[in-house]
């Protein structure tokens, strides 16, 4: 672990140095929304943003991708072929979410090459948080504004500069290679400023009590709270699609003009079709059952399966739900179930 200083004025130079080796993906403004995009010109990179609208999972687990195509009578795999890349400036909560997706996509020796190949090709440089949003609750789910899990390198904004901390071997190697020449020592005052910023961010973060939620969810499965919780739910896929840990997918074959390809795309338990049986039976007939499924998958079943709560407290579902459902309230309600 090493820490060096990158002055603001040198950020374009830093980006260009990275671009010699790798593609750089980072937060940028597109028509008033912050999106993750390929940075071509360094001045498009925005390191003063709050939160990317969609999560970075789409870089490794895209909204849709071609898995393979038919040649003659064989299905030929189309594995991702890409240049190495850097994910520069994502939030620690999103990086931590990637470590959860890692548990899903490479599990007990079963390796999903579409996801894992991309992960191996990518280096994650996070930007620690100074101004958590009112909807952020990372510390309540075991995270932090400067949580290193999932980061190869972490940046901390200080006055007119960034402290660059290398976290993993991959990260150290890259920083030494491309930026060793113009990164400097970190003055004491910046270390103090950083410590204060982290302290302030921690204080600002809303604290939610999750201590009873796993047992409350298990005990409350049939207790009837879910109808009221899910009454406003419109049944769209917004919450799952903006969530950095939701990972359900569908696989479909598309036949077109004599060729065929196999496609993987996002799916969500919030859609009616998700568990609709061929027989016509629907085991999750209403938003109540479907909302229960989503919350339990993240806060109960993931704990059983992976010993992790699959929620990083990013708050996207709270901000984007068109019907105002608020998982923080659901947690409070179900946590109180004896």
């Amino acid at each position, binding site marked *: 672990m090493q820490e060096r200083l990158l002055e603001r004025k040198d950020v374009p130079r830093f980006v260009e140095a990275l671009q010699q080796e790798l593609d750089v993906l980072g937060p940028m*403004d*597109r*028509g*008033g*929304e*912050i999106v993750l995009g390929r940075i071509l010109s360094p001045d498009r990179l925005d390191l003063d*943003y*709050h939160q990317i*609208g*969609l999560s970075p999972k789409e870089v490794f687990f895209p*909204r*849709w991708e071609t898995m393979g195509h038919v040649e003659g009578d064989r299905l030929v795999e189309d594995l991702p072929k890409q240049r190495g890349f850097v994910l520069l400036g994502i939030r620690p909560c999103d990086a931590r979410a990637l470590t959860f997706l890692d548990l899903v996509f490479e599990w007990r020796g079963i390796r999903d090459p579409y996801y894992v190949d991309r992960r191996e090709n990518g280096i994650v440089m996070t930007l620690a948080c100074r*101004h958590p*949003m*009112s*909807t952020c609750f990372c510390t309540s789910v075991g995270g932090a504004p400067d949580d290193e899990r999932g980061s190869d390198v972490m940046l901390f904004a200080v006055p007119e500069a960034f402290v660059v901390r290398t976290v993993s071997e991959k990260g150290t190697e890259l920083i030494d290679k491309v930026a060793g020449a113009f990164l400097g020592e970190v003055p004491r005052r910046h270390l103090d400023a950083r410590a204060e910023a982290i302290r302030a961010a921690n204080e600002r973060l809303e604290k939610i009590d999750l201590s009873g939620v796993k047992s409350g969810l298990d005990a409350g499965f049939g207790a009837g709270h879910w109808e*009221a919780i899910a*009454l*406003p739910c*419109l*049944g*769209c*896929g*917004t919450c799952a*699609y*903006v969530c950095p840990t939701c990972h359900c997918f*569908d696989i*479909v074959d*598309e036949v077109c003009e004599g060729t065929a390809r196999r*496609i993987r*795309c*996002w*799916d969500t338990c919030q*859609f009616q*079709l998700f568990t609709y049986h061929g027989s016509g039976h629907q085991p999750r007939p209403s938003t109540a059952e479907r909302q229960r499924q989503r919350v339990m998958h993240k806060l109960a079943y993931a704990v059983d399966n992976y010993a992790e709560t699959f929620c990083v407290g990013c708050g996207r579902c*709270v*901000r*984007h739900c*068109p*019907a*105002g*459902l*608020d998982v*923080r*309230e659901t947690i409070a309600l179900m946590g109180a179930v004896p």
Partner: protein
Amino acid sequence: MRAVDRLIQDRLVARATELLGAGEVDLVLGHRRRGLPLGSRPAFVSDPAQAKELVFDEHCGLNLTVYLPRLLRPSGRKAAPRVAIVVKGCDARSLVGLVKERQIPRDNLIVLGVPCLGVVDLHRLQRLVGGAEIVDTMPDDSGSRVVLTDHLGRSHQLELDALLRDGCRTCRHPTPVMCDELLGEPLEPRAAEARFAALEAIEALPSAARWQRFRAEIAKCIRCYACRQACPSCYCTTCFAEQTSPAWTTPAAQESDVMLFHLGRLLHMAGRCTECGACTAACPTGVDLSPYAAMIIREVEDQWGKEANVSLDDLPAMIEFNPEDDQSFMTEPQA
């Protein structure tokens, strides 16, 4: 908060308390505050003591009629609840549509109409404050301004009119066309000259630019179906976009499939869309296809002279065959 809205809100709370207390309805469907400083969310109030949670202001943009088909369906042996619903002008038109298309019964429903001065477009507000997080709103009874505080403590003073949804600025039916009780003074329609301004701006572009503009909007879409789910007129049990036999589109998000979904959905709204803006407001990524919806609205109004869902007594334009309709578009085959 606009003074007019304050009066309406007070009347609404009083009436809801009365209706629930007297047992005239089982449920009042209105708006309440949400867990964020801006916006609102649906309120399903069954206890008269909770009626005071009901609000009405410039953030009550949801079209609550979307919940009615589900709510008013009897389930098992339980009879459907008797519901009182709060509707703005645009929502009332959706109600007309749902009744005409036999998706909800008219009885057992008390329609509380609220004349509406327009609601805030939260996407637009976000852009105007440069992406800052709004943490507080300061009370401003001028009725024409909002004062917002952001996460850095900075104050933003914005004209309310600049924040309204486009559709609200050219609204022709601010007073509900259908209601049992009107909770405020009727309002005049707003200036209609600019009604198709956004559409006309696109039509003025050269063809290649128009195509790129459409592509750029579609590129933002993640096909979460928030637009469809928020729309009261989209009530099909199986949406065409989810049919597998035939599979008109995959569930993925290839550009052509996303275009097919949106164009299909908008065309299915021909003669039915009430311009409520619920679709655009629900979208998590800021997709705005309202000019294209407007094109279809304009086409239907030009061809058949009918505005969608303002009257319970006429048939929707795309359902009715009237022998008097203009048939000049049919031409003789070339000899």
